[in-house]
Each structure stands twice: as structure tokens, then as C-alpha cells.
């Protein structure tokens, strides 16, 4: 397939795990680990899907998502949000910010894979 994923996450071990799972499934995985310039990186690299963590240094995932949705041509970009805070209000905030899907940590590898495939291929 060769579709590209951009993973925005600051916890090194989780980056390693998700990269491993997706690469083995044939995705080309790029990673980025802070919130400050995340929007710029997305705009520049134009991935097929973004996996976005909520708690990031510099800027929260919600803020990044909101900016992405406002950017030109990114309104329909599939974004999978990950959060380690499992409360209802976190899910609501993600939806309001425009997340394509929302997933609570810890997740099973199969779930992530399935969600990514769903979002990109439909």
C-alpha cells in the first residue's frame, strides 16, 4: 500500500510500539514529538493520516487539531486521537475539536491497526 502515517506523540516507548505495528503492516511511518511546530510538520509532509496524542509539550492535541481543521485543504484529513485521560469530557473535547476517531490508552494493537485502515481506506 505504502500509505503514510504521521505519529505525533511524546512518549518514546509508545512511538516505538505504534511505529513497529504500522510498519509491519506496510505503512510508512514518520514521527514528531512536540506540540510547538506540529501543525507546520503536518502541512509540509501531507500524510494520509495523523495519529495525535493529547498531552504534548508546547501545545495540546486539541489546539493542534483545531488549527489543522482551519488550515487549507486539511479539513478532511483523517485524525486519530489518543489520550491517556479516560474521562467522558475528554472524548467530547476531541469530537468538538474535529477528531475523526478517538481512542483511550491503553489500546490493543489490533484496534489501532483497524482504526487506521478504516480511516484511510474507508
Amino acid at each position, binding site marked *: 500500500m505504502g500509505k503514510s502515517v504521521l505519529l505525533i506523540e511524546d512518549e518514546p516507548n509508545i512511538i516505538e510500539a505504534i511505529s513497529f505495528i504500522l510498519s509491519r503492516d506496510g505503512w510508512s511511518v514518520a514521527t514528531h514529538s512536540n506540540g510547538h511546530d506540529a501543525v507546520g510538520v503536518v502541512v509540509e509532509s501531507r500524510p494520509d493520516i495523523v495519529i495525535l496524542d493529547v498531552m504534548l509539550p508546547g501545545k495540546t492535541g486539541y489546539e493542534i487539531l483545531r488549527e489543522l481543521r482551519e488550515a487549507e485543504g486539511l479539513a478532511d484529513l483523517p485524525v486519530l486521537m489518543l489520550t*491517556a485521560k479516560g474521562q467522558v469530557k475528554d472524548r467530547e473535547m476531541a469530537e468538538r475539536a474535529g477528531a475523526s476517531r478517538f481512542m483511550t490508552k*491503553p*489500546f490493543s494493537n489490533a484496534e489501532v491497526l483497524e482504526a487506521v485502515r478504516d480511516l484511510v481506506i474507508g
Partner: protein
Amino acid sequence: MGTLNMLVFVCLVYVAFLFLVAFAAERAAMQGKGGWLRSPIVYTLSLSIYCTAWTFYGAVGYAARSGLEYLTIYIGPSLVMVGWWWVLRKLVRIGRTQRVTSIADLISSRYGKSNLLAVGVTVLAVIGTTPYIALQLQSVTVSFAVFSDAYDASVPLGEQESNALLVAAGLALFTIIFGTRNLDVNERHHGVVMAIAVEAVVKLFALLAVGVFVVWGIGGGVGDILQRIDASKIGTWQIEGDRWATLIFLSAAAFLCLPRMFQVLVVENDSEDHLRTASWAFPAYLMVMSLFVVPIAVVGLDLLPAGSNPDFFVLTVPLATGNNGLAMLSFLGGFSSATSMVIVAALALSTMVSNHIVMPIWLNSNFGGATVSGDVRHVVLLSRRISIGAVVTLGYLYYRMSGGGTALASIGLISFAGVAQFLPVLIGGIFWRGATRLGAFAGLTVGFLIWAYALLLPSFGTGTLVSEALLAQGPLGIGWLRPQAFFGITGMDPLVHAIFWSTLLNALAFFLVSLGGFPSPVERLQGAQFVNVFEHSGTPQGWSGDLVQSEDLMIMAQRILGAREAQGLFEREAKRQGMGGVLPEPSPDFLQVLERELSGSVGVATAHAMVEQIVGGASVSVEDLMAVADETAQIMEHSSQLQAKSTELSRTARQLRQANDKLTQISAQKDAFLSQVSHELRTPMTSIRAFSEILRDTDRLSAAEQTKYSTIIHDEALRLTRLLDDLLDLSVLESGQVSLNMQSGKLDDLLDHAIATALTGSGQDSLRIRRTRGQEQALLRTDLDRLSQVFINLIGNAQKYCDAETPELRIEVSQSNGQMTVDFIDNGQGISKKDQAVIFEKFARAGVQRASGAGLGLAICREIMTRLGGTVSYLPGQGGAAFRVVLAGQGQLAAQ
């Protein structure tokens, strides 16, 4: 020449002895052993700087010329002392409650803290005192010359002048060393006071010795001397009523108003009780001083050739009878009288010049505001030192320019008359609440102009500054303005005339202008505080501090009082207000205390201006209103009570609002706590789950990959354990069920260990640590592991959060009263005010989450320190982030 050399030698030994006395007294006071320094006897003896060389030598001359009139200059001060209950007690109480540093400070403080008034008083005091200092220098050099003449008539005049210069330089040096050792908030100088007390004993002893010698050595005992007095013209002198009354009034006024007398009477006073002793002891001292004056005068007139200067009989009578030892003692007595006067006068004047002229100018020209950081104590000290030098130099120049002639001899009373002009303003200020600043200006101006015109200028001799014509016909021929015959009233003694008119018109101007104007609010308040000092001790003025930034005040206070003292003061006040931490609420009470502390260093007016700059304006506090209301009866009382209620209500409302804010904050933190626990647990669990699934589901993993992934699982499991440990630790600490493992150890070892642990695994360059090992040699008795846990946490925080380019952490240790303080100060941008309030709460992390901590570290630290009987708090105003750990019940230095 041999005896002359001997004299120089004795003089030097005596001076060295005085330095030693002053030094020992300072040391004793510093070590807290100086209880005897504050005895009423030392206080009484220090008052004897009233007896300068002018009285030591001059009293005999005075008696030889004018009979018993010399007694008037002793009677005036004696009356003041005997009546201490009415005036002195009040002055001393005011001086203490208002932290007054000089007479200029007192007057400016009373009249609305006006610095302009302080400047005026200072300038007038300098004008009035400079000739007097010159007189002392002259007496030392002339008495030296008297000795020289007796042995070698060829001592050139130039040598006299260089002697005067040497004496002046020595005195300035002494005053600088012991008068400006430190900025004592109380402005007490134990070394100086002790030295002048010793000098007081020396001059009394010397005069008594000469007296005894004259009566029993030369004369044939008491009966013989009484006969001689009867036979001489001294016995027949008439008492002139008006001159006597004027001189008694004058010396009493000068006793209260002379800057040097104010210094020893009020500023150096340690306890009001001392006045009780001094009230009889000082008149007794004066009586003994005057006991032998007439006998010495009579015998001198008999013994010495006609035309000898009676001013130096005390010296020439022993010399003429070949009694060199006694003459030398007498010389030392005169020397003591002169030097003690110059030292205290220079000290008092320099405080005034520095506080009211130099410092305000310097503060204004160097800083836009009072909050710029940096220590100004050295500037205050330097300006005092320069002022001392300037005052003594001025005295020396005056001596040189006046040629040391006989004109100086009459300057004593003229000087007295000059400073006596402060009297109406001073007495009016402490007894009459209607007195105003404008009135004070008017009175002082009128008094001094008349004094200068009628007394000072003519004293330089007719035809020098005041022409013959002016004296005879008045300016421009206006007869009633003749300098020595105002309103055409002739025939008065010029001195009596000048004192009568200057004081009368001064008081009149002061009174009328005060009546005509209306005092400003600050003047009214200060007036109430001064006049009713015994009813309202200790509440000088009101500040409304709602809008004040305590931190700004802290920065300013550190600059003037020094960091330690300022922090100590703030912490004490915060504790008194029942608040934790180092920053007290800027309540009116606190601001008053702060202003008083500052005024000890820079004077009332300047301190007031500095606080005002930060606070933004004075307002009337309830207590102040109550003080004023005493006078204006019920209606004011009622309204001020209403105001009290409304102020109290608004204060309660503010406190409620604060409590509510805090509760809201805590409840938000509870939510955040759950959310945080969830986050902190889920993150490692994500990695564990993901990698265990990978290990389970993936075929063909290489051995290296397998090891790597299981290691990650292992590490994350450890991280979970650590988090649970922290939570558990905190709950145990909070519930108070922790048992402490008390051990002894050295602080530097503990810090070594903590630094090593905190910085493991990060490059050692990531944080530079600066320590002063010298201060760390202290033995601790506490739970060392727990304390170490606190240190590790604070160092770790600095490493994680310090955002400076080259991060650096200073660790500063200090001890006092068994309390050990360890400060951790980094060079980052510090913690914002908003965050300072919450960093010790659980899961609170300053700013955006930048680092890996769970936010439990400081919460644990706080709990630990509470269990150890100490505190850990944020220390604001240090530049970077700063934490202070205080451990009580510690103390002694460990053996090296």
C-alpha cells in the same frame, strides 16, 4: 622639649586607649554581652558631652571675668533634667516609637514627613555647629601652645595649624570607624558612647584634681580660699536678673536642641528608665564640675601676672607652680572635652546630612524607582562617612579662616542661640496638635534670620560683615531695624537682645502661621501620634496596602536592610499574620513596621517616600482615625467606628473571597488529580500492553528485538511501581503514621549524596552546582534519609525546570538560634506568582507540562518537612526559582 614630647606621647597613648575602649564596647555589644553598656550611669556620663572644652577651660575664664554668671550654663540643663517627666520622657518615647535618627528627622516626621523641612533643619544645624567644632579644635591647639610656651617659646604658628589638622583628621577617623561600623536599625553606637563616657570621667577627674591642688596645695584649705574669694572682685559681682534668666533659658534650650545632645539624649537612649537616674545624676555631675571653678579663678588671678588669659588657668596654674604631671592631666581633661564633643557632633550631623540631603539626591538621580535590586547599604554608609569627613573639614576650615582669634571664644553662646531656634518648633510639635508644617517653616526662617542679623554677623566684629553705620543707624537708615536695638529699644545687652527677639518672633511666626493654616491629613496624624504618644504608642501612620506587590517591597527592603534581615522581617510578619511562606499581606500594620525598620537606615522622610512609591499613596487607617478622634469628640468617634466596621467588613469579604478561590482551586485540583492519576497510570500501561502483544503475536522477532521489548515492559512496570510508591508515601505522610529514623550526620555529606543521586544518569554538565562548603560544616540530628529525599527532589527540580542557557544552582546554608536554613536558588526565570501558590499541591506542575514528573515531589517534600519539624517554602524575589528549607532544633558546628 622633653616634656613636650612626653605630652605628645601621653596624648597618643590616651587616643589609643580610647580606640581600645570603643572597640571592646562594640565587640561586647555584638556578642550580646554588653548589658553594662546600657546602664543608666553610662547614659548619664554620655550626656556630659554638654561640657565641651568651652566649659572645661572657659568656665574659669568666665568666672574670672563675670563672676558667678558661668553657673547659668549649668543651671539650664539641670532644670531640663530635673523636669524630665514633662519634656525629655516624651521626646525619648517619640524617638523610640518613630525610630527617629536625629533632631531633623524628628521635626520632619512631626510635620508631615517633609524632607524639605529636614533639609532646612540640617543646614541650620550645620551652620550653628561648625563654629563650635572650630572652637574645640582651637582649644586643643591653644592648650598645646600653652604647654609649648612654658618650655619653648619658639613653636611656630604653622605647627599649631598642622596640630589642628592632625586632631581633626584623627577625630574624623574615630567617628567613621565607630560611628559607621554598620547600619544599626536602632542607630545606637555603643563604641562611641562608651568612649565618651570614659572621657567624661577623665575630664571630671582632671578638673577635680586641679581644684583639690588649688585649694589644699596652693591655698591653705577651705577657709583660706573663702577669704580669698571674699577679697577678690568675684565675690562682689552683681547678679543681673535679665541676663541670668536669658542665659538659663538659652542653655536649657540648647541642651534640648543641639544635634549632639539630641543624639545622646534621645537617639542613643536605651531605656526611658535611664532618664530617672540621669535626672539627678547629671545635675550632680554638673555641680561637681562647677565646684572648683571659682577657687581656680581666684587663685589664678592672684598667682599669675596680670593680663594672663584666665581661660587657661586650669592649665597655667599647675604649670606655673611646676606641677607638670597635674598640668598634663588637666590637658587630657580639656582634650577629652573637645574630642568627645566633635565626635558626637560629627556623628549627629553626618546622619542628618546623609539621610536628608545626600541619600534623597542619590536615590532620585540613580533610580527611577525604589524597587531596582542591588544593595544600597554601602551607599548609605559611604555617604555617612563622607558627611563626617565634610563636617569635620568644615570645622577645620572655619578655624583656619577665623584665624583662631579671640572671636571664637564668644562663639559658644552664639551657637547655642542658633540651635535654640529649633525650640518653638520642637516643643510646639510635641505639645500642640495645631502646629503645622508652614508654621514650622515660618518660625524657623524668622528665628534664624534674626539670629544671623542681630548676633552672628555682628559677632565677626564691627566693620567686617556689618558696617559701623548699619549698627548705629540701621539698614538704609531705618532706625528700628538696627541689629542690636530692634524697634528702637536700646540699652539691652546685645546677646539678651538677640535671643529675646529671635525666640519671641520665631515663636510668634510659628504660632500665627499654624493658626492661620490647616494641617494636612498626614500632619494631623503625626501630630496626634506625637502629642499623645503615651496613649498611642506604636501606630505612626496608615497605609492602605491592598494594591501593593509584597514582592516589590521585599526587593526594596533587601536593598536597604540586607537580604537576611529583610527576609527575616518579612517571614516574622507573615507568621504574625498567620500566613505561611515568606510574603506577608501588605496590611497597614505590616507597612508601618516596614517603614519604621527602613527609617532606621535612611530616615523617616526617605523611608516614607520609598514605601509610598510602591504602595502608591497613604491613607488613613482606623487606628489613626481613632487617635485623631480623641480630640474631636463623639461625632468623629462615631464615624470612625462606622468606618472601622466597613473596613472590617470589606476585609472579611476579601478573606472570604480568598477562601472561596482557594476552595475552587482545590476542587479543580481534585478533578485534575483523578485525571492525572489516570494519565500517569495509563501511559506506562499503554507501552506494556502494546509490547506484550507484539511479543505474543509477532513471529520471527530477532533475539535483540525480543530483549529490547521485554526491557521496555520491565522499565515501564518499574515506573508504575514508583508512581504507586509515591502515592503511598504521600498518603502515609499525610496521615501522620510515618515513623522517623533519627540519625546524626553532617550536612555537607548529605548534600554530596543528594547531588550525586539527583544528577545520576544525566550529564554532569546539565546543571552546575555552586556551594559554600565552609557553611555546610554543621551536624544534623534528624531523619537523614527523609531530609535527603527533600534535597534530591529540589535539586532534581532545578535540573528539570531551570531554563537558563547554562543552568546553575546555588546552595546557601546559614544558621541562627539553632535554626538551620538551606536555600536552593537557580538562575532560571523562576516560578510565576500564580504558580507559587499551588506548586506544593499534589500533581501541580508549574506552567505547561514539560517534564516527566508526576507532580508529587514538592507535595511529598512539604509533608516530610512538616514531619521533621521544619518547613520548605518558595522564596520569592531571588531572580530564579528559589526554595528554602528550614530545620529547627539544629545547631553546633561539627568538629572539622
